[in-house]
């Protein structure tokens, strides 16, 4: 820090200096380059590595998908759309698409509702806050593969805990592994187990950023707790809910670990009951050794993800805004009678619309290697 004797300070104005540049010492010249080049130097590792291991493979997938390309033989001849035609003609592709969608819905909708409820509980004035927060986060540190192994035993058809419990209350055992919908429920349960608490904490952070005055005003107006939750909490959480739903969409549609580990064969069940798109991709590429077709599935899955992300974005916006409507100033209509809050201390300029940094904004680490999409 203190090498002041060695080199002179770099003055920003030195460029406009009338003196000829020769007079600037070597060290100063060096310092100038240091200032100019360092920013690029520091961001270059990310961009170089990302270009090689992230961007290039994604784009090159398109190239592979229009060629015959076997796992062992490598690149073959150009076949145009043939790989896509083949896949779109496969019943298994459509089955996988349906299963992926079904598992996605079963794991997202209940998860969001449960996470909101848990977040509301955690938002109350609790004793031992940290304990409860850590408690709901516990499943997050268990690898999806381990979760899947544990839950496939819990959901075992013959002697699983769940079927045994059902038997004790007089319900016939359910074919968790043999039937389609039950297998989706079992797999969704694994996803929900791992992510509900995590998302609850995100919602909790957003809830804590809601100004408490709103609740006080609503209480004065006579709104009950449930009404407050519906008309204040939910609308205020809208950006966060949208954010979580979008990241769940990107990750959830690529689901692989849980269905892969649901039985030891890893083919999505005897008749593809729980075959998902990523499982199908893996199967085409590395079991039938056809990388060209696997790449085509990757592109189709990419399209599906984009379509669903947009669809969910629109849908979530609609659902979240139907709770309470905002007027033009961005103020919330809270009271049941529809009148604006009379006693709100600071009107339109309050952080009503401000999405605090603690909420959704920073971060959607849906990164391929460490992110949620990697499961």
């Amino acid at each position, binding site marked *: 820090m203190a090498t002041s004797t060695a080199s002179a300070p770099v003055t920003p104005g030195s460029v406009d200096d009338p003196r000829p540049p020769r007079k600037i010492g070597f060290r100063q010249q060096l310092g100038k380059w240091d*200032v100019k080049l360092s920013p690029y130097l520091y961001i270059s590792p*990310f961009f170089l590595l990302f270009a090689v291991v992230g961007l290039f493979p994604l784009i090159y997938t398109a190239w592979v998908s229009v060629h015959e390309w076997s796992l062992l033989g490598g690149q073959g001849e150009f076949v145009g759309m043939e790989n896509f035609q083949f896949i779109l003609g496969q019943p298994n592709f459509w089955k996988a698409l349906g299963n992926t969608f079904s598992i996605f819905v079963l794991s997202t909708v209940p998860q969001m509702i449960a996470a909101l409820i848990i977040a509301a509980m955690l938002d109350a004035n609790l004793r031992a806050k940290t304990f409860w927060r850590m408690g709901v986060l516990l499943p997050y540190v268990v690898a999806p593969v381990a979760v899947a192994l544990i839950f496939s035993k819990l959901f075992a058809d013959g002697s699983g805990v769940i079927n045994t419990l059902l038997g004790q209350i007089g319900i016939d055992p359910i074919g968790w592994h043999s039937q389609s919908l039950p297998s989706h429920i079992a797999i969704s349960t694994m996803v929900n187990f791992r992510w509900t608490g995590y998302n609850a904490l995100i919602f909790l952070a957003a809830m804590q950023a809601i100004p408490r005055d709103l609740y006080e005003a609503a209480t004065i107006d006579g709104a009950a707790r449930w009404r407050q939750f519906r008309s204040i909490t939910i609308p205020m959480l809208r950006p966060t809910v949208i954010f979580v739903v979008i990241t769940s969409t990107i990750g959830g549609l690529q689901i692989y670990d849980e269905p892969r580990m649901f039985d030891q064969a890893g083919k999505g069940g005897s008749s593809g009951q729980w075959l998902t798109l990523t499982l199908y991709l893996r199967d085409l*590429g590395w079991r039938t050794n056809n990388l060209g077709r696997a*790449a085509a599935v990757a592109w189709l899955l990419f399209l599906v993800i984009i379509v669903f992300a947009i669809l969910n974005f629109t849908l979530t916006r609609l659902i979240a805004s139907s709770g309470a409507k905002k007027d033009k100033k961005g103020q919330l209509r809270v009271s049941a009678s529809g009148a604006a809050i009379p006693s709100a201390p600071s009107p339109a300029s309050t952080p009503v619309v401000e999405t605090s940094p603690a909420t959704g904004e920073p*971060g959607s680490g849906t*990164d391929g290697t460490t992110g949620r999409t990697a499961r």
Partner: protein
Amino acid sequence: MSTSIPMLEQSAGRGAARAAARRRKHQTQTSEGRRAGWVTYTILAIVVLGSAYPLYYSLQLASSTASQIAQNPIPGLGLGGNLLENLQRVMDANINLPQAFVNSVIVAVVTSASVVLFSTLAGFSFAKLRFRGRGPLLVFVIATMAVPTQLGVVPLFIVMRELGLVGNLLAVILPGLVTAFGVFWMTQYLESALPYELIEAARVDGASMIRTFWHIALPAARPAAAMLALFTFIGSWTNFFWPSIVLGTQNPTLPVALQLLQASFFKDMSLIMAGVVISVIPLLVLFVIAGRQLVAGIMAGAVKG
């Protein structure tokens, strides 16, 4: 309520601190507040028990024998007496579990260190230095966070085979060395946590850029860097899809080894669960030590890692 707000700002970022400050203000105003009733505690207790039970169940199976498991579909409350024996058996099984454990540690440690270093470097540059193209490049970083890079597995595999890295740990490490999320996370944090005055002071004292980074930015980034390291470590430890494609059976990481275990010993649940226990324990230890930071990290940045 023992932690001060500036402290919280250090550990959890400004957003959380602001939220806490706002919250505390209102708590003192409304002395009654919304004190949690027994219903809240009951529901939360059920949720926490539900979170813990599957883990305890795996420990129960891992400590039983195969015949005990067959006899009692629902184990009682206690543990069986065969835990150590099962752990020993699974370590000796022919799936190379000890090697897998070491591999997982190597991959997780190397990727966490690299992600933190490169993200902090890039974050420092994006947050505090001025250069042409800064805005568009940052937008690019943010945009790539939403791109499902996992879908590039096919070319990635082709490349790794060209490089002769199939079956090599490097094939798993290389794609994990940087994350767009990490860059964004550190940029966000350094923007608010690192005052310009500090950088200028260092520059006036004649420190070079890299010295300024090392002695000023890096120490300031420590709280966020620690959280980023945690999330990267967990993400790497639990990663399965790509390692299962590129590593094969000879040189697995733990999740891949668990899959091999399931494939060869699916009749012996006690053995499989012993493997599960071995794979879960390191992250559980981490959770006990750093669970607070995990919670704070998720709440501060709504991390998806």
